[in-house]
Structures are given as structure tokens and as C-alpha cells.
């Protein structure tokens, strides 16, 4: 789907959505009070430096602040991730490897022991970074690998010095998986941050109670550093692990946002429930935008037969992406370009703008067979696809369709189903002999989608890509600070990757996000920052 059509759909959806809400949200003044009901996840524990689990990170976006965060609100187009200050009032970059942040004054910790509402200082920031980088078992530490040292210059100023220029540094800081600022006294008191009582931050809500496997409750932080916010008094979070039960609860009006990440529901559920929801919840707001979970087939490009670019091209041409979208996502899906998915509007490139490589993304089984013949495989060849179901019928269907399309061009691919744990420890990290297939981690920045998958030697370089041209482009974009130039570089990289087709990029879903009509001043977006998107929202009921 190209840019203009997608914009139209989003615009159309927003238009339709506003038609569903009786009054325009813009003209009203925010109302204090109310309880929001959400379905979220049960964190394995509450220490954000001890887990990569989105379950914990999402939960912390309500209670903690970061130096910078992503802009949120109904005016923000989903898929755009502009950065603004959170705890940092402003920042400067004196040279390529130095950042100086000026913190807001008067930011207070939650009024709970042992911090008891004292003021946040630069020392807290320094401590947090140190803990993030050194605490054992922090798998996300790589996000700030480029940091050399952190120094508080005075009570409200912090200086970061990087080992090498890294143009995405601010994006790393804004990501909810990274630097939520914590206080040393809390860590000292509890030993670590795993118990829920240790969830103490400077964020808009405070964690009032937690019942494992059942739910948790947030209450408003009266001393939040943005005057008047948050408007919502309480947030009741329910943990619900069964889709049938979630569906029923949502129909009965229980949750104010859709129950899946990032506040939506699965396409297949949406199509079935649409009509019933119109009757049962007529004032529901619907916003649709491309999702950032990519699906692709990885292959051993360092071995036969995949070391021949013609074979790779054939594989890509074998997929009927339009039918895949229709079948898997009821027509609401996107054909992603290589590397960065379309969802990241600021960085990605629609398939028809890929230039010479665009032809590899067209559905052309005849040409695919011809290419296979030219490469020396007139009758195709056998292959094995290593994968796991992720417990998702959509992934199962996707895999079966892929097998069918490959078979149509002569590639006799057998599914090698693995259990999730076994898959992660082998195929997901490139330990396979033929092919592997599956959904990929959703990131919020262009760098992660490219560097991990294409740089030689990286663990996630599933296809075993070793291309000096690509490696050079990847390193260069990391050092290009000018956003427009960086974008151009990334687009160039994508065009080159489209020609090489080191991965067979398949389709991804559109997110169908739902929010109750009573929730005003809310705009959905990609990513885990539920707290950031709700802090300025209010309830009109």
C-alpha cells in the first residue's frame, strides 16, 4: 500500500471515528476524575532492569518518567515517534559524542517511603544509568552500549559522553524499554526492584496494589510535575489470559481500550465483533494504522542454494502478498519493504518506491520459476522451514500459506514445527540449515530493524548476511545526525536490500485500536508507552 492510500485510510477511519463520537473532543476542557479499566499483562516481576518483558515495561510507563519520551495525543499521527522532553526540560549536543540535559526543577518522587516525595536530581539520573548498564541480567543494556560516562554537572544538569557517535541515542532514551529513572534509596531498601512495593517513580500514577495473576491498581499522583495532570484518578488493570473471556468482557463494556498491544484487538476478532460492538458499544473510537511487527523468511545466504540472488528473488516473487493480506488480515494489512516496516512512517519506504528492487515484491510465479531454472534448479529444490506457532492461529495460517506459495514455484518446503523455547534457542538466532520463518520483534526505531539483522556477526543476523556494502551503509547511518540525510541513507539501504532480498519479507497486520468514546484527548500509537499516551487524557462519563 502506498503512502497516499494509507493516509486516506487513516484519515477516513479518523473521520468515521469522529462521526461515532457525539461531540468533538477538541473544544472541551479536561475533567478531573474517573476510573479507567484496562486489560494488561502480569509482569514476571517489577524490576525493569531485570527483564525484557513488555509486561513489566508497559506497567512502568504509568509510574515512572524518562529523560525524554515520545509525543502523544490525538494530534500525533500513529507511526510517527517525535521526541519531546519528559524529565528533561531541554538538551544540547555540544559535539557528536556529548549530550547535556537540563532537568526540570521541582520534580518530586512519589510520596512513599523511603523517598517520601523528595526532589529528583541529576544524581538520580546518573545512578539509574549506572544500574541499567551494570545490573546482572539486563538484556536491554545493549541499548545504551554506546554510553561511556554519565556525569551530573550540577543538581539539575546531566552530561552524557558516548564512546562513538550514535545518531539514535535519543530514541534509545525515549524507548520505554530503557531508562525509567529510579531512586537509589528504593533499591537499597528492597535489595532490587522486583517486589511491587518498590515501584516508586516520578510518573503520573502510583501503584496502589497488586494481586498476582489477577490485576493491579494505579492511583493518581497528586504531586505530578505537570500541573493538573493526570486527569484520570484511578486505573484498574485486569489480567486476562484467554481470548474468549476477553472478548466477552469487552463486549460487556469492561475495558476502555482494546485488549491487545497497543490498545487494539486482533483483526479476526474485529471483523467478527464489529457489528455486535456497534450495538453494544456505539461510542467506540476506532483508529487503524500499520503495525510494526514484521514477518519474514530467513535463509542461509552463505550456503547453496540461497547464496544465489536469483533463488532469493524467486522466493520473494512467489508470495502473493495481496492474497496474504486478504486471507490473514481480512484485507487490513501491509506489504512491508525490507528492514524497516512501513509502520515507522518517518523512516520507511513503501514497496513501490524501492526502485529496481521493487519487481522482487511483485507476485510473479512464472518469473520465479524462470529464475530458479536459470540458477540451475529447473525442478525446484527441497527445503525445511523452521518455525514455531507462537500460540497464534494467524502465524499458523501464515506459515501454511507460505508453504503453498513456495510449492507452487517448485520449492518443496517442509514445515519443521518447533516448540517456542527450542525455536528461540536455535532458529531465531540463525541456527538453522535451510529456512526459518516467523514474526520479528517490534522496534520503535529504524536502527534496530536494520543493524541486528544485516550486520555481520550480530546474533539476530538470521540470514548470515555478510555484505560489506550493507555493513558500510549501516555504520554510516548511525553517524549521520541530520535527520533528513539519515532518512535518505536508510531509504537507500532499503533499496539496496530490496535488490539483494536477503530475507523474504512477507506481510504485516494493521492495528485496529479501539478506545471508549468517553476517553478524550487520547491518541493511539505504536509502542509500550501506555502511560505517556494516557497522561493528558480524561474521562467524560
Amino acid at each position, binding site marked *: 500500500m502506498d503512502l497516499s492510500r494509507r493516509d486516506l485510510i487513516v484519515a477516513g477511519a479518523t473521520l468515521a471515528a469522529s462521526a461515532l463520537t457525539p461531540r468533538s473532543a477538541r473544544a472541551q476542557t479536561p475533567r478531573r476524575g474517573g476510573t479507567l479499566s484496562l486489560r494488561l499483562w502480569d509482569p514476571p516481576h517489577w524490576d525493569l532492569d531485570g527483564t525484557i518483558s513488555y509486561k513489566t515495561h508497559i506497567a512502568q510507563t504509568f509510574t515512572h518518567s524518562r529523560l525524554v519520551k515520545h509525543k502523544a495525543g490525538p494530534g500525533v499521527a500513529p507511526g510517527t515517534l517525535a521526541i519531546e522532553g519528559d524529565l528533561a526540560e531541554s538538551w544540547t549536543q555540544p559535539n557528536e559524542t556529548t549530550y547535556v540535559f537540563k532537568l526540570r526543577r521541582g520534580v518530586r518522587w512519589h510520596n512513599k517511603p523511603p523517598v517520601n516525595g523528595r526532589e529528583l536530581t541529576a544524581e538520580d539520573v546518573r545512578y539509574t544509568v549506572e544500574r541499567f548498564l551494570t545490573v546482572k541480567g539486563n538484556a536491554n543494556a545493549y541499548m545504551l552500549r554506546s554510553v561511556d560516562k554519565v556525569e551530573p554537572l550540577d543538581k539539575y544538569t546531566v552530561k552524557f559522553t558516548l564512546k562513538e557517535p550514535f545518531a539514535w541515542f535519543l530514541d534509545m532514551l525515549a524507548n520505554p524499554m530503557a531508562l525509567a529513572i529510579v531512586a537509589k534509596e528504593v533499591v537499597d531498601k528492597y535489595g532490587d526492584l522486583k517486589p511491587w512495593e518498590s515501584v516508586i517513580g516520578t510518573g503520573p500514577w502510583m501503584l496502589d496494589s497488586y494481586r498476582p495473576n489477577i490485576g493491579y491498581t494505579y492511583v493518581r499522583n497528586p504531586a505530578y510535575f505537570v500541573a493538573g495532570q493526570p486527569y484520570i484518578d484511578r486505573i484498574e488493570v485486569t489480567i486476562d489470559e484467554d481470548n474468549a473471556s476477553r472478548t466477552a468482557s469487552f463486549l*460487556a463494556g469492561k475495558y476502555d481500550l482494546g485488549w491487545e498491544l497497543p490498545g487494539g484487538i486482533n483483526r479476526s476478532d474485529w471483523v467478527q465483533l464489529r457489528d455486535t460492538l456497534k450495538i453494544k458499544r456505539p461510542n467506540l473510537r476506532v483508529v487503524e494504522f500499520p503495525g510494526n511487527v514484521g514477518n519474514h523468511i530467513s535463509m542461509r545466504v552463505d550456503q547453496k542454494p540461497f547464496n544465489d540472488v536469483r533463488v532469493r528473488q524467486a522466493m520473494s516473487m512467489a508470495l502473493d502478498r495481496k492474497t496474504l493480506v486478504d486471507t490473514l488480515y481480512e484485507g487490513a494489512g501491509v506489504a512491508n519493504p525490507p528492514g524497516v516496516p512501513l509502520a515507522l512512517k518517518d523512516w520507511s519506504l513503501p514497496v513501490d518506491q524501492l526502485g529496481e528492487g521493487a519487481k522482487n515484491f511483485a507476485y510473479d510465479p512464472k518469473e520465479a520459476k524462470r529464475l530458479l531454472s536459470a540458477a540451475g534448479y529447473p525442478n525446484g529444490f527441497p527445503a525445511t522451514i523452521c518455525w514455531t506457532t507462537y500460540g497464534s492461529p494467524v502465524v499458523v495460517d501464515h506459515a501454511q500459506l507460505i508453504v503453498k506459495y513456495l510449492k507452487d514455484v517448485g520449492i518443496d518446503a517442509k514445515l519443521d514445527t518447533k516448540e*517456542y523455547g527450542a525455536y528461540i*534457542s536455535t532458529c531465531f538466532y540463525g541456527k538453522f540449515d535451510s529456512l526459518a520463518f516467523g514474526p520479528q520483534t517490534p522496534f520503535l526505531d529504524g536502527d534496530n530493524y536494520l543493524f541486528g539483522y544485516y550486520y555481520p556477526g550480530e546474533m539476530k543476523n538470521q540470514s548470515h548476511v555478510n555484505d560489506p556494502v550493507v555493513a558500510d551503509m549501516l555504520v554510516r547511518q548511525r553517524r549521520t545526525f541530520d535527520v533528513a540525510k539519515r532518512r535518505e541513507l536508510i531509504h537507500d539501504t532499503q533499496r539496496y536490500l530490496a535488490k539483494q532480498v536477503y530475507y523474504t519479507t512477507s506481510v504485516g497486520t494493521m492495528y485496529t485500536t479501539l478506545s471508549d468514546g468517553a476517553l478524550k484527548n487520547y491518541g493511539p500509537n505504536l509502542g509500550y508507552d501506555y502511560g505517556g499516551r494516557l497522561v493528558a487524557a480524561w474521562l467524560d462519563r
Partner: protein
Amino acid sequence: MLRRYLARRLVVAIPSLLIASAIVFALPRLIPGDAVQLMLAETSYAKDIDELRAKLGLDRPFYVQYVDWLGRAVRGDLGESLWTRRPVLQELAQRLPVTGELAAYATVVALLISLPIGVLAAARQDSLADYVVRSLAILGLSVPAFWLATLLIVLPAIWWGWRPLTGYVEFRADPVAHVTQLLLPAAILGIATAAALMRLTRGMLLEVLRQDYVRTAWAKGLAERAVVVKHGLRNAVIPVVTLLGTQLPQIFGGTVVIETIFGLPGVSRFLFDAINQRDYPVIQGVNLLVVSTVVVVNLAVDTLYAVLDPRIRY
């Protein structure tokens, strides 16, 4: 006599426990992919994996880990979950009552259904009543539980806007809601067990009813009810009790589906997640608990058996 029998059974139980504990320890470790890799999955780098593994003590030799674990288990320390870092015993203490209650209610439902039906079917063997009643019972166990549960949750929501009884309510919070929320899942579970129990009851009762002492009772002119219930049922109950005893471990694993669908924080779901995540301490802890409970229960059942039927003292 009885004491010697009991003592012998006890002595025999210990090697069972030891063998079981070894199996419990070994089995999860044979599975490819370990907890650390899973924990750090998808965004990790090689160095972090090794560090975390060392921190969790997973890099020590197998037998060292086993002895260490066993030693601590005997003292009541089942270690910490690799994922949540909370003590396993604590987690179990929270979850066991839920599954236990569910199992208890399910058993009650099963008995309430199966005993009368089994008796009726035996007393009226090969009559229409026998057929109808048996068909219904078997049908009950033929329908996959998760399918039934799903239907019973989703359809009322669509037809009547009826919010499901999911989202666990603790007893302290609301005793009535607490009990009612368990009724539907218990009923679904109970129906499946009921069929098995009914079949057994009917079979045992049929056998007993042919015994000489029962014929004597008939001959003496005792009312049917007295014969069937007093003489027949009492002796048929023993194997039923034994069957219940053997079902016990299945309850710990078998309620996974129901617990998932109804959002009940029980031991089964906990165990299932632990297996998927290779959370060894949890898997070991739950298994050890289950195995110990089963051994104890079996011992109790055997004792009951011996008390009720003096012939069984071999």
C-alpha cells in the same frame, strides 16, 4: 498386623519419592533451550546469556545442582522462580488453594452425578433408563472441555450481554462471588470425571450384586434399596475411592485448560507456564509437592482399603 502393613507401605514409599524426585529434576533439563535463553530472548547478546546463567547457578554440574536442590527441599526451601524471583513455596501457597478448591468442587459434582447414575444404571441394567443415562454421561466426557467452556463464555456475552465470571475473586473479598465463580469451571471439569466414575460405579456394583451374600440378601427378602445401597454400594465404593486417589496428580496438570479459560490463578497454569519458560525451580517444586501429596494420599487410601477389607493385607 495393620501396623506392620503400614510400616511396610511407608518404607516402600520412600524409594518412590526418591526416584520421582530424580525424574522431576532431570526431565526439564533434557529439554533444549534453557530458561536463560528464553528470558533474554529476542533482544539479547551472547555475553549477557552467559552472565545470567552464572548468576542463576545454572552453569554448575548437573549432580551438584541436584544435591543442592534436594538438600534445600528437605528443609522446606524450594528455591526461587527463575523468572519472577519469588520463592516457589510462596507462589505455591497462593495457587494451591485455588486448584484445590476447583478440584474439590469438581469431585463433588462428579460424585453427585456419577453415583446416582451408576447405581441406577446397574440396578436397571440394559433398560432404556440405563442406555439414556449412560449415553448422556459418555457424551459429557466426549465433548472437549475447552470447547464447551468457550461456548459457555462467548455465547451468553453475545446473546445477553452477560459478562463472564472471569477475573478471580478472592474469598476474603467476596465469599459468595468467590464460590459462584468456581461453579461453572467445576461443573465442566466434573462432567468429564463423572463419566469415568459412573462407569466404574456401575461396573463394580454389577459385580458386587452377583455375589453370594447379595443373593442371600435378596433371598431374605430385603428391599431393593437396602440391598443395593447397604451391601452393594459399600463394597463398590472402595475401588471408586482408589480411582479418585489415582486421579489426584491429574488434577494438578489436567485443570490447565479450565484455569486458562476462566482466568483462575491455579497451580496447573503455573506449572504449564513454568514448563514453557523452563523455570526449573518451579517445575521441580510443583512436581515434588504433587508427588509427595500423591504418595501420602495413596498411603492413606491403601490404609483405608486394608481397614475396610481384611483380605487385602498381602
